[in-house]
Each structure stands twice: as structure tokens, then as C-alpha cells.
């Protein structure tokens, strides 16, 4: 079936005219339509534009033109916080329910130029704040492995859509784990690049020193095909780093012999379920069979990562979300009595509960009298965490851990205890604090629900991470599994 093909097979199939871009695009659009009520993965489906683009690529392919871009005809979906010119960008919020961006995010423009065809915009936790998908104004996306479970968040719809093969590729954003954790919950691969590798221009900002666009796919190999199309310096993003972007597919097959993998069992074992620990040990054995060597490491400040994150990220969010004031765009309350009422009621009516929680705590930690004790102190502890990772990478090449301490939990299970939700990200958040690269790959199942392993690499080591993940996926089959209902 078309939706079970790899990116390499799709590129080959399109160029050899085994199938047309129109057929491929139509196939995915039909699947989205068939399963949209079951999964609620999509907020907007851009059918007409997608088919128009597909026909354009078919004309180019028919002429055997040399000007065919590298990813011509490859379907893609974008989390609904990527600005897309002409299609709504809602951030799953009432605040931006009808907002249509007047420009494309840099990443969207680059992938369009590379030939990707946008199928639509995916569901998410509001303004990327959440770990389950339940904070969406449009209702939660569902986990294709069990529709009563969350797909994870905040890139819930992107993960759900790829896992159900409604799209071969979807982009998300990862601020504290929002690509890796839903990838783990949905049994797919999800990469968070090094901070600064991928432009943030045109992505609705949540926490500017953490946010990174990431990729969901069924395999690390598929991710390797997409990453070059979006990565690289962007002058419009003042935190964009100038670095050489390699062809990540060329190094996928390097041997893992002698690879040093850092593991910290003390850190995982107290918080992780037994089944996850068991599967992690099996994944470790597979890597050892491939020649990797396990090295015990310690990140002493890792247990401070969540508290540090929940000072700095809300602080940054309280600043970033100040722009939503009902004046130039977005939701405006009806009949404001005065300017203050316009601001306050537009924001109070436009934002959901979790967003308001984070704005409030962020405002508090930045306020006079508390700034030094909280925000400044958190920034200093953040440096200690970064230093601990740097020390670890003097001894090892990659660091391995579970992606999440549990499998996907049930919808509404953590609604009444929002703080307990934050602990889903206990292994992913340290990576964002240090700005490192991280990938989650599926390593098995527990009671029918997927489990993911996280590999963390040093700065700009995406080629190595994808290589390690690909070698693991060559000797295992977890990444090929699709839920029966969607196969």
C-alpha cells in the first residue's frame, strides 16, 4: 500500500512513474477524510491546494525536467503553530481560531521549495503547552493504538497522523519534549534537532530559548531525507546557527562498532515502569550486538530539569504571549468598555486554562522581588545542567534513556492534576535545557501501547543520532508496526 512505503520508495515510485503525485496525494487525503472523526488529528485539510501542487509536479515529472526538486510530491502535514500563507494557523486556540497567516514560516517555505505537498495543519495542545493533546480548543487528537488514550503532546495531531499513516511526514515543535514524547506514545520516530539548527521564524513562539521544529516519520531513514530540506541558517531568526548541513542519508549505514553509549540507570529506574525498563534493556542488548559499548554516566543535575524548565519556559511564554491583546489580530472580546477591558477580556476569553497557568507562573517568577530567587537562579541552574551534559559527552558519543516514564495514559486521566502531567517530560526536558539534539524511536509495546527509547546527541550531531537509530531499526521491526484499524 502507498501509505506503507518509505520516503525513499515514494521518491523512486514518483520518478519512475509507478504512481503519480496526484494519486499519492489523493490516497493520503482520502485516508485523512476516512479517519478524521476517529482521530481528530487535523484542524485544517488543504485538499484543493494539495491536488493543484500534485498536478504541477506530475507535469514536471512527465517532462522529465531536470528542475524537479529533491522531495517533489512528498506529502507533509504541519503542526498548527507553523504559519502557512493562505491556510489557518490556530495554535489550537480560540485566540487564533480564524487567523490566516500572511506569510509562510521559513521551514514551510523551504520544504515547499523542496517539493513537499502540504496536506493540512495538525491538532496540538494550545500554544504548544501540554503533554497529551487535551489542551486543544478543538478537542484532543487520539492515539491510533488505542482511541481512549492520548497521543501525547503537544504535537499530538502530527504524531497521531503519522502513526495512522495519514501522512508519511509531519512536523511538530519540541520545547520540552513535544516531538519526542508523542513519538514514543504513538510508536513512531521523532527528532528534535539541536537548538539553532532549524529556523524558528514563522513558528508561533512559546519559549524562545527552547523551541525547535522537529520531524515525525515512521523511521529515522525517512527523517534523514527531510531534515536537509528544512535545516540551515536563516537570517530572519536571530538565534539561527550557521553550520554545514550534510546529506544525512549518506551516513545512515556507518557501523556502530565502538560507539560509546551513556546510560544512567539510577536516574531512570525510580520513575519508570517495569515494562519500559525491561524493553530498554532489550534495546541496549541490540545496540551491544551492533558493537556499541555501554558506559555508566551521571547527570547529577538532571532531577532539577523540570523545576528549572517550569520557571524559564513559563517566563518566556508570558512575554511571548503578551502580543495576543485583541488589537491587530486574533480574538477580541465583544463590546470592550475601555482599553484595559479589551486586553483583559480578550485574553481571558481567548486563552485556555493551561496557557493561563503558565502565563501566571511566568509573570510571577519575573516580577519584582521574585526575579532573582526564581528566574535568575533557574538560569544559573540551567548552566549547571548544560555543563553536566558537556562533561558526559567527553566520555560518550550518545546518551540513551527511556523517552517517557509511562506509556500513553488515558484521556482525562490527568485533567484534575495538571502538575502530574508535567512529569511525562522528565527525560526529555533536560535535552531542551541544554539545547542538544534528541530522537525517540519505538522499541516495543506494553499492553498494546508503544514504548520509545530516547537517544541524545551532542550539538549538531543529528547525523550520528540518525545513524544509530537507523542501525537499530535495521535489526528490529517496531518502527514498521501500524495499528490494525489503520493498516
Amino acid at each position, binding site marked *: 500500500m502507498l501509505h506503507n512505503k518509505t520516503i525513499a520508495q515514494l521518491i523512486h515510485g514518483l520518478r519512475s512513474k509507478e504512481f503519480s503525485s496526484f494519486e499519492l496525494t489523493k490516497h493520503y487525503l482520502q485516508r485523512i477524510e476516512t479517519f478524521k472523526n476517529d482521530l481528530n488529528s487535523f484542524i485544517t485539510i488543504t485538499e484543493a491546494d494539495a491536488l493543484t501542487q500534485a498536478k504541477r509536479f506530475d507535469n514536471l515529472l512527465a517532462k522529465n525536467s531536470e528542475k524537479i526538486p529533491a522531495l517533489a510530491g512528498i506529502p507533509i502535514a504541519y503542526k498548527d503553530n507553523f504559519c502557512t500563507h493562505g491556510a489557518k494557523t490556530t495554535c489550537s486556540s480560540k485566540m487564533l481560531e480564524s*487567523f*490566516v497567516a*500572511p506569510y509562510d514560516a521559513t521551514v514551510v517555505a523551504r520544504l515547499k521549495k523542496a517539493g513537499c505537498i502540504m496536506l493540512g495543519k495538525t491538532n496540538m495542545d494550545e500554544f504548544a503547552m501540554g503533554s497529551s493533546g487535551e489542551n486543544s480548543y478543538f478537542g484532543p487528537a487520539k492515539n491510533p493504538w488505542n482511541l481512549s488514550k492520548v497521543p501525547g503532546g503537544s504535537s499530538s495531531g502530527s504524531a497521531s497522523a503519522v502513526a495512522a499513516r495519514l501522512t508519511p511526514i509531519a512536523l511538530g515543535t519540541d520545547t520540552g519534549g513535544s516531538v519526542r514524547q508523542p513519538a514514543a506514545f504513538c510508536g513512531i520516530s521523532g527528532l528534535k534537532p539541536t*537548538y539553532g539548527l532549524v529556523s524558528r521564524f514563522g513558528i508561533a513562539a512559546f519559549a524562545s530559548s527552547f523551541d525547535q521544529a522537529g520531524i515525525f516519520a515512521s523511521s529515522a531513514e525517512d527523517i534523514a531525507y527531510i531534515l536537509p530540506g528544512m535545516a540551515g541558517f536563516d*537570517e530572519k531568526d*536571530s*538565534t539561527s*546557527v550557521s553550520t554545514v548541513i550534510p546529506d544525512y542519508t549518506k551516513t545512515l549505514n556507518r557501523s556502530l562498532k565502538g560507539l560509546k553509549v551513556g546510560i544512567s540507570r539510577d536516574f531512570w529506574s525510580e520513575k519508570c515502569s517495569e515494562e519500559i525498563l525491561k524493553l530498554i534493556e532489550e534495546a541496549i542488548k541490540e545496540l551491544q550486538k551492533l558493537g556499541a559499548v555501554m558506559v555508566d554516566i551521571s547527570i547529577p*543535575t538532571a*532531577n*532539577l530539569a*523540570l*523545576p*528549572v524548565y*517550569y520557571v524559564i519556559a513559563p517566563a518566556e511564554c508570558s512575554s511571548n504571549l*503578551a502580543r495576543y*491583546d485583541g*488589537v*491587530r*489580530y*486574533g480574538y*477580541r472580546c465583544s463590546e*470592550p*468598555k*475601555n*482599553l*484595559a*477591558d*479589551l486586553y483583559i*477580556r480578550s*485574553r*481571558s476569553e481567548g*486563552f485556555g486554562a493551561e496557557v*493561563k*497557568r503558565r*502565563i*501566571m*507562573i511566568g*509573570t510571577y*517568577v519575573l*516580577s519584582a522581588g521574585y526575579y532573582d*530567587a*526564581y528566574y535568575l*537562579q*533557574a*538560569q*544559573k*541552574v*540551567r*548552566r*549547571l545542567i*548544560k555543563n553536566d551534559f558537556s562533561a558526559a559527552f567527553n566520555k560518550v558519543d550518545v546518551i540513551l534513556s527511556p523517552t517517557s516514564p509511562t506509556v500513553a495514559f488515558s484521556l482525562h486521566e490527568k485533567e484534575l492534576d*495538571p*502538575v502530574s502531567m*508535567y512529569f511525562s517530560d522528565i527525560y526529555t526536558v533536560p535535552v531542551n*535545557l*541544554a*539545547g*542538544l539534539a534528541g530522537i525517540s524511536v519505538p522499541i516495543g509495546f506494553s499492553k498494546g501501547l508503544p514504548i520509545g527509547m530516547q537517544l541524545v546527541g551532542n*550539538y549538531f550531531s543529528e547525523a550520528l543520532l540518525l545513524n544509530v537509530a537507523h542501525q537499530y531499526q535495521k535489526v528490529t521491526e517496531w518502527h514498521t508496526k501500524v495499528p490494525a484499524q489503520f493498516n
Partner: protein
Amino acid sequence: MSSLDLQAIEKIAKLSQLSFTKEGLANYQHDLNEMLEMIEAIKNVDTQNIEPLTSPHSMSLRTRHDVVTEIVDEAQQGALQKLAPEIESKLFLVTKVIDDHN
């Protein structure tokens, strides 16, 4: 451990340009105090002589020349202003600013 009373929550809400019902305030008081309980762990960490980290990479934000590079013509201006809740004569309309509100 710091604990926020209702008065503190009201002050934070005002700074955040948010408002809540009485019940809402009490709920947020509970949630924020739970978050603070988690966050308290950072207070005991020795950070003497440690520089704050503002970004994962040591970088100064790039600057650019102070010249207009985006030329916005009438059509573009129209497209941008189409997003606004209220426009008149190409101006964003808000409620009267000069009044006696606090």
C-alpha cells in the same frame, strides 16, 4: 516555602492582563502553589559564581542595519489588515484610550 494567597494571585492576574471569577482564582491559587512546590527545589542549589544561561549557545543576537527592507504595498497592507478585528481608514481601531479607567 513560598505560598501564594488570593491577594497575590489577583496581583499576578492583573500583571498578566487576565481576570478570573472567585472560583477560578481559588483554582489557580491551588495550581500555582503546586507548581511553586515543584519549583522550590532550585532554591537550595549552590550557584555561586555561576553565570546565568540565556541561550544554549554562546551567542550575541545578530543585529542588522537600520533600514527598511520589507516594502509593503497597498495590496499587502490590505492583506495584513484583513486580520484585524476592526479597521477604519487603514488604522487599527481600539476603544478610547484617554478616559478615567484605572
